[in-house]
């Protein structure tokens, strides 16, 4: 990527640790001395007004669907279908949430129509957290080895990794389905991988193909190249083992890049749809996105449950986004990916 971001360097950490001055002090320091040229362009009141006139309606268009989603998740099905639409429910109800999570006592109508499962969210959480932790760790391990170790075969293996970044996920999707089905010793398979269903319908199948990402390795390696070799050699002279160097010296220096990798991995794993859709069929074991999508296909009228489920499925993403907002923007600039 060319010039849209500062190059990631380990050295930048020092500047980030600089103390944050109180706002008042900062303001005074930033004040323009009399007669000095303006730092930033001065925007006339008219231009400002015009800007707001364009920005505000678009912002409303962007936020309105969410407002509706949240509002509708607290409405009974009757007012969701009402005309004109109800934006603020008169009698907010959590029936939709109860129905979708299948907790508490359900009304007869709900039982007849079908309901969601709270397990879907648990499944999603287990899978997304496992993939995030494992992938960040294994990516960092590989990236460090490719960046800082010299060993026979390094370039060959790395080029192989790089080359397959060009292969879209859809090409390996179908063979992977068959491979996962024939993993030996799992799901009733014999040692040749025949006879059972392997990793189909299991967390293994969801997690394992996602624990390494060539793309993540590539980006982390770029970041790790900027760590000075002297630092690692110093640790080596001090008698640190190779793993200790990686764990106690390299990893702490790479925190910003690791955070970006982890955030995007979590996002991607949480909203992954295609892979769980094809390999999971047990309704107890599917993840939240698949549960939601199949729900709309099967029970076309239970939109209050669906909206409640949608809100719950969105929440973790919003929370992660709010906590890591700073990393998000930088991570996007560095990696250019949306999870």
């Amino acid at each position, binding site marked *: 990527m060319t010039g849209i971001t500062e190059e990631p360097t380990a050295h930048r950490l020092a500047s980030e640790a600089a103390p944050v001055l109180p706002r008042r002090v900062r303001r005074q320091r930033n004040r323009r001395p009399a007669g000095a040229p303006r730092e930033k362009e001065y925007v006339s009141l008219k231009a400002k007004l015009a800007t707001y006139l364009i920005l505000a309606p678009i912002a409303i268009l962007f936020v309105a669907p969410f407002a509706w989603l949240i509002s509708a998740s607290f409405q009974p099905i009757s007012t969701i279908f009402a005309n004109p639409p109800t934006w603020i429910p008169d009698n907010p109800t959590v029936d939709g949430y109860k129905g979708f999570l299948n907790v508490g006592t359900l009304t007869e109508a709900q039982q007849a129509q079908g309901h969601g499962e709270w397990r879907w969210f648990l499944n999603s959480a287990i899978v997304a957290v496992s993939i995030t932790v494992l992938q960040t760790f294994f*990516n960092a391990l590989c990236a460090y080895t490719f960046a800082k170790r010299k060993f026979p075969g390094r370039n060959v293996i790395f080029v192989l990794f790089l080359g397959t970044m060009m292969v879209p996920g859809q090409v390996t999707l179908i063979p992977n389905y068959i491979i996962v089905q024939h993993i030996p010793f799992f799901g009733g398979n014999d040692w040749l991988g025949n006879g059972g269903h392997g990793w189909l319908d299991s967390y293994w199948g969801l997690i394992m193909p996602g624990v390494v990402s060539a793309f993540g390795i590539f980006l982390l390696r770029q970041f790790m190249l900027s760590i000075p070799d002297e630092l690692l050699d110093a640790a080596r002279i001090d008698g640190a083992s190779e793993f200790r160097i990686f764990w106690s010296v390299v990893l702490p220096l790479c925190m910003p890049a690791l955070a970006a990798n982890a955030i995007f991995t979590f996002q991607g794993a949480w909203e992954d749809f295609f892979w769980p859709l094809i390999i999971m069929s047990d309704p107890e074991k599917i993840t939240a996105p698949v549960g939601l999508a199949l729900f709309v296909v099967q029970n076309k009228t239970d939109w209050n449950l669906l909206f409640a489920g949608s809100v719950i499925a969105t929440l973790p993403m919003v929370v992660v986004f709010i906590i890591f907002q700073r990393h998000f923007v930088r991570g996007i600039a560095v990696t250019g990916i949306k999870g």
Partner: protein
Amino acid sequence: MSTAVAPVRKDVRDTRVRKFFWRMWRERSAYLFIAPGVIIFSVFTLAALIFAFYLTFHRWSIIEPEKPYVGLQNYEDMIHDERFVQSVLNTVYFTGASVPLTMIIGLTLALLLNQPIRGRAIFRTAYYLPVVTPFVVSALLWKWLYNGEFGLFNYYLLKGHIIDEPLLWLSDKNLAMPAVVLMSVWSGVGFSMVVYLAGLQSIPYELYESAKLDGCGTWRRIRYVTIPLLRPTTLFLLVIGIIGSLQVFTQIFVMTSGGPVNKTTTMVYYMYLWAFKYYDMGYASTLAFALFAMLLVFTALQLRLFKDGGTQ
């Protein structure tokens, strides 16, 4: 003479081989470090890729025990498959409509937000919210908004007298694809905006100042300073956008299921149908390779962009 040289050569080679293995042994921890990655990668990427290629030459059904070799039959079938051609056209239509729209709106918003005005953070968050939302949720939500009878779109468009009678957005032959495009633009604009904002911030202010001194108005400054300097950002977004759009699937699955009359059947959705509805893994793999071929140019470009960024 040759007998005199040969032993020396052999000796050299021996030392070299020994050195090689000695180096491997010395760096054994490095192999241990990459082992988990390499194993997973070999199984789910390398082996899978080779297997996918193998599948394209076979009629491979999950439910039938016989998996005969059929040569190039799958490729021939594909070329003569009208639905395949239709799916390619649909995918190109989707990409051609959604990528430029997303980028233009993203750029406009970024330009507006790059001014020193109050409430920038609020606006930025508002535009970015759809990017954070899980794609399935966005698709479900928009499916409801597009609903012919109860959807909010029809309600407000009717109320504003923009349309006279309710539109069947997702089941109308000519409206379904634009409706999917609109939803995709909505969820992608925030991303373009953030990337463009990062790009804008790297443009030195002096350039605007000198352009101003030369008598350029706002519009001309945008046209002759901002847009040319944003070229790398634009190229980056274009490549990323095209790659993502050619693989569109989730929206289609949730909102239209490829209908009406295949008007929104995209390449990936068509592949999905063949693999997991008709259970023909061989033909589905062939379709996947067709997508691979289409993507190849753009992914190669993307890799170049990343490499440049890394060595800069």
